[in-house]
Structures are given as structure tokens and as C-alpha cells.
């Protein structure tokens, strides 16, 4: 979408459409000759948990910093609640950030850190202690109110950083890989706490991560970035079930990419044939490992595409088996419910509905 030279009222009308809290319109950012973001447009609804997902260097943190105000977009606009946001300095934006390394003020105690935003923005003195205590209760850190950040563990600092941002009642909370420095267990725990906090408070979260599991677990919608461009934006279920591109399909979960030739409504890939609605030509399909099933004891479903393949490798992981199958030089990965050792040639099937056409 482009808004070339759009006059303000028009743009305001667009920004105000629907219940979008934040609208990023055609934003690009370059550092010198390096293009970090290319013409990104997306909207965040009020109360939504949106995740910016991508590898390092995909531009997700840059986009966050543009919204926070630490960087200026090279082109494009950012709107919040019908107001132009990108022209405001960071301290005038009703946006707060939880930084990757927490960025707690080392010379202030926990309660001074949490009260900082209230103090500098001139909240009535009498009101501050109560709000600080509330915020600390919210993240279960009240007993550490008088400690300095250096005395706290990573997880505790994380909570304080969260309280320090939330106490200002931002319209939008930006979280820059906030859990990446925590160990796996703590991370899982913080994930569920974050999610329930977000639901309770109804604050809109914009969360940056490179961890697709985290993105899946937390988000209402995921915006996948690749090389500074928006690859796909959709709910976790949607993006998993219907990846738009081969990159999305491989980045989110595992998949088999099948390069098929379509002729007369039939897709052909190696020895596999299945009916497809795409026009004739070369099409890339994504077929998730769990869409491949071992032949049933009873009859096959009516639309089943059956094939025989050699089990080359089998890895047991408790509830399921990860298989590597070979048929006519093609390698497929399958995930089936745990069912004991398999050997030699077996019969498998999949439903053509699970083969999703994706762009390269």
C-alpha cells in the first residue's frame, strides 16, 4: 500500500479506520546505504498481542525502535490513535519499552526505578507510592522495593523492567526480546505470566522475538519479517496452517517443501500425484510432517494419497516419532504418534488438503 504525498486529513481518516491503535504506513529505514526496513505497513488493534518475529538482522528491533522513537523512519508514517506518532520525541509518546537487557537505572532502587516515569511526567507526588506498590505487586516484586538492580537476578530484573514500563499505563507496550536472557524454565514461566498480565491489563503488546515457539505461544498475531520486509502477518494458527511463502513455512515449524508440476488439475512431484486446483505450471507445496500418516489398520480416508516409502531414520521423542522417509530419491520428514520401531518399507498417506501452495 502506498500513500504518495497524502494530505494529512486523508491519512488521518485511514489511520483512524477500524479500531487500529497503531498504524505503520509504508515505513522504510536505511542506515547509510544499508536498507534495514523496506516499506512496512501493518496495524495493531487495541488489546492485541502482536509479535514481530524474524531472524537477527530482519529489522524487527529497528521497527520497534521506530515506534518507540529512538530512530526516525527514512520514509513513511506511524500513527497512534489517529495521531501522527513518528514526529514526536520518545518522551512524548504514550508508549513504553521493556528493553532486552532491562536497562534498569543502576543508581536507583527498585521502587525509584518503577517510580521514575511517574516522577518525570509530573504525576502528583501523593499518587506515586501507591501506583509503584501496585505495579510491584503485579510482578510480585514488592519485597525487593528497596534493593538496587545489581542485587537482583535476571528474572527479577526482568519483572522490575516490566513494572517500570506498565506503571505508566502505556497504550502500547513494546517488548524487545525481553525473555532472551533467561534460562529455559524461567522463560516458560515468564511467558505465561506475560500472557496473563496482558489479558488482565488489556494493554496492547508489541513483542519482538526470534524464537518462533515463543511467538506461537504468546501472540494473537505474528508478523514475520525477512530482510526488512513483511513476509506474512496472521494468527499463529493461520500462519502455521497457511504459510504464504516457503520461508514462512520453514521458519514457523518444520515442513516438507515439494516442488510439483501441475497439469490438468493434478500435481506431480516425483512419484507422488494429487489433485490440485492451481493453474498449470510449477508450484511449490508445503506439507507439514504431521500431515503424513502411517497406513491405518482399517480403510484409508477417501481422499488419501497413498505411497510407500523406506524409513531411513526414526527418532523417538516421547509422545511422537520423527521419521525420515525416502521414496524414489525424495526425502520426507514425518511426525507420527509414538508406535514402536519401524523398519524397511511402509505405507503412508496424506490428504491433498494439507499440501499448501506457497510462494518461493
Amino acid at each position: 500500500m502506498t500513500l504518495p504525498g497524502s494530505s494529512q486529513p486523508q491519512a488521518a481518516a485511514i489511520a483512524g479506520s477500524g479500531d487500529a491503535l497503531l498504524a505503520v504506513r509504508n515505513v522504510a529505514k536505511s542506515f547509510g546505504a544499508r536498507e534495514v526496513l523496506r516499506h512496512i505497513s501493518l496495524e495493531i488493534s487495541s488489546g492485541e498481542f502482536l509479535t514481530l518475529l524474524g531472524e537477527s538482522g530482519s529489522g524487527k528491533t529497528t521497527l520497534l525502535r521506530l515506534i518507540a522513537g529512538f530512530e526516525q523512519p527514512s520514509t513513511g508514517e506511524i500513527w497512534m490513535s489517529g495521531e501522527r506518532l513518528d514526529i514526536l520525541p520518545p518522551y512524548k509518546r504514550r508508549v513504553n519499552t521493556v528493553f532486552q537487557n532491562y536497562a534498569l537505572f543502576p543508581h536507583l532502587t527498585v521502587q525509584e526505578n518503577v517510580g521514575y516515569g511517574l516522577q518525570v511526567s509530573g504525576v502528583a507526588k501523593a499518587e506515586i507510592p501507591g501506583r509503584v506498590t501496585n505495579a510491584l505487586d503485579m510482578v510480585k516484586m514488592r519485597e525487593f522495593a528497596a534493593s538496587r538492580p545489581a542485587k537482583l537476578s535476571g528474572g527479577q530484573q526482568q519483572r522490575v523492567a516490566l513494572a517500570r514500563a506498565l506503571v505508566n499505563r502505556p497504550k502500547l507496550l513494546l517488548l524487545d526480546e525481553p525473555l532472551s536472557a533467561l534460562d529455559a524454565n524461567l522463560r516458560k514461566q515468564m511467558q505465561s505470566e506475560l500472557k496473563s498480565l496482558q489479558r488482565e491489563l488489556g494493554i496492547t503488546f508489541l513483542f519482538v522475538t526470534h524464537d518462533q515457539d515463543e511467538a506461537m505461544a504468546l501472540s494473537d498475531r505474528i508478523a514475520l519479517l525477512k530482510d526488512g520486509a513483511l513476509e506474512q502477518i496472521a494468527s499463529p494458527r493461520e500462519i502455521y496452517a497457511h504459510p504464504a511463502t516457503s520461508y514462512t513455512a520453514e521458519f514457523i515449524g518444520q515442513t516438507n517443501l515439494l516442488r510439483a508440476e501441475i497439469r490438468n488439475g493434478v500435481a506431480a512431484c516425483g512419484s507422488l500425484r494429487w489433485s490440485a486446483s492451481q493453474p498449470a505450471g510449477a508450484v511449490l507445496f508445503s506439507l507439514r510432517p504431521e500431515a503424513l500418516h502411517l497406513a491405518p489398520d482399517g480403510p484409508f480416508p477417501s481422499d488419501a494419497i497413498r505411497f510407500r516409502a523406506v524409513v531411513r531414520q526414526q527418532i523417538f521423542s516421547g509422545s511422537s516419532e520423527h521419521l525420515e522417509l525416502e521414496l524414489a530419491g525424495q526425502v520426507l520428514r514425518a511426525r507420527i504418534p509414538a508406535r514402536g520401531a519401524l523398519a524397511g518399507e511402509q505405507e503412508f498417506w496424506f490428504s491433498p488438503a494439507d499440501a499448501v501452495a506457497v510462494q518461493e
Partner: protein
Amino acid sequence: MYSRAYKWIVSAPPILWVGIFLLLPYALMFAHSFWVVRDGMIAHEWNLQNYAKLFQNPVYLEVLFRTMRIAAAVTLLSLLLGYPLAYYMSFHANMRKDLLYQLVIVPLWVSYLVRGYAWKTILGSEGVLNGFLQYIHVTKEPVSFFLYSPFAVVLMLTHIYTPFVFLPLYASLEHIPRNLVEASQDLGAGSRATFFRVILPLSLPGLLAGATFAFVLTLGDFLAPLLVGGPSSIMIANIVQSLFGTAYDWPLGAAISVCILLLTISLLFLTERLEKRWSFR
């Protein structure tokens, strides 16, 4: 583990060095301060006469206080010059950082004496400053109080010690994580509030170290008063120098030195404690 012999060999040189060139002279100075001069000879009679003289003769205390006033002025001016420079370089200079840093450092390679004489040629009655003022008709005759005044001493020492103030300040500003500045802005603080609530408190250790440099170095300076000072700006080190030289009253000179030493040590002790309290990393 290192052997005993190895530890001895490694630690002997510094211990000897400190013993011979630091502790021994201090001990001698300390001893001298309790002796007296009789008939042009130093008599080894232990007494407190020298210390009594220090407090009876108002000249010594007066000069000591003047020295401290000059040191305070130099410290303050160096901070006023050094802090904005360090702040600008650390936060806003970007590409020019290295060049500016070199420009600050380069004067340190020039001899103290050369810089002193440079001020003489600038401030003298036939000097650059007077010439300029007369040229633009601000003054008709050479202004005489530029040179040979406490003003000249403060000016020269400020010029010389500003880099000493700048360096620790710059280092401490460079160590402030930039995301703290961003966090402050993010929480609604403008640049003023961010400076006074985050940057200044976190730069206090460097500020203190720089101020201590300027103050202590000025306290012991005797060349600036000799070169550009004149009689009205005699400092305590000049008195010590003349007592050890022409006046040949080593015991009194030693007593004054002991006082300055105690002053300096307590100052260093105090600032060290404060620096520890103000550093949070």
C-alpha cells in the same frame, strides 16, 4: 602455584622502589619536621616548635588558604570546561570523536614550561591579548593585571589541568550504557531530566576523580606562581621551596609539607570513599 622464590623476585623491585624513593623520604621529612635549625645547622632536638610557628604566623595559613582557593577555582573552571566537552564528545560527536579526543590529548605532550611561557606572551603588557584589546579600542593602555596575578595562575592551571579533568569524566560518560538514556526518554523524561537524573549521577565517579586531580595537582604547584603569578599569588609550595632553598629552614619546610601531605591524603581518602559509594557497576 608460584614458588616462594619467584614471588620474592617479582615483588622485590617495587617494594624496594617504594621503600627507597617514597617511604624513606617521607620518613626523613617527617623526622625533620620535629627538628630545629640552630646557628645555621639542623639540630636533632625533637619538639613541636615548627608546627607551633605554622599556626602562630598568619602568613602560612593565609597562603595555605589562598592556595586552596586557587585550587578550588581551578577545579571549578576545569569542570565547567571539561564536563560540557566530555558530554558533547561522548553523546553527540559521533564521527569526530577520535579527532576531538586527540585534540584534547595533544597539549599533554607539550612541556608544562612551554605552556607556561605561552601564557606569558599572551597575557604580558606587550602580549597578544593587550595588543588585541588596544587594536579593537577596548583599552587605551596595556592592562597590567592580566599577568602576575592570581587570575593568571588560575587561567594557566585551568588550561593545564582541564585535560586531567576531562579524561576520567569522558571515560565515565562513555561507560554509561546508552539504553539507560533511551529508557529515561522512553519513560517520559526530556533531555534535561535525563541529564540530571541519569547521566550526571552516573558520571559522578569520573567527575570526582577529575576534580581530585585538578585540586591536588594545583595544591602542590609552584611553577605557575613563579612564571605568571607575582607576589600576590604565592602558593604554599613556593613557601616550601624557599624554605628548603634560600631560607635554609628545612624543619619548617618539612612541617608545612607534612600538613599538605595530610591534607592531600585525607582528601584522597574521602574522594575514594565517595567514588565507591557512587559507582554502581
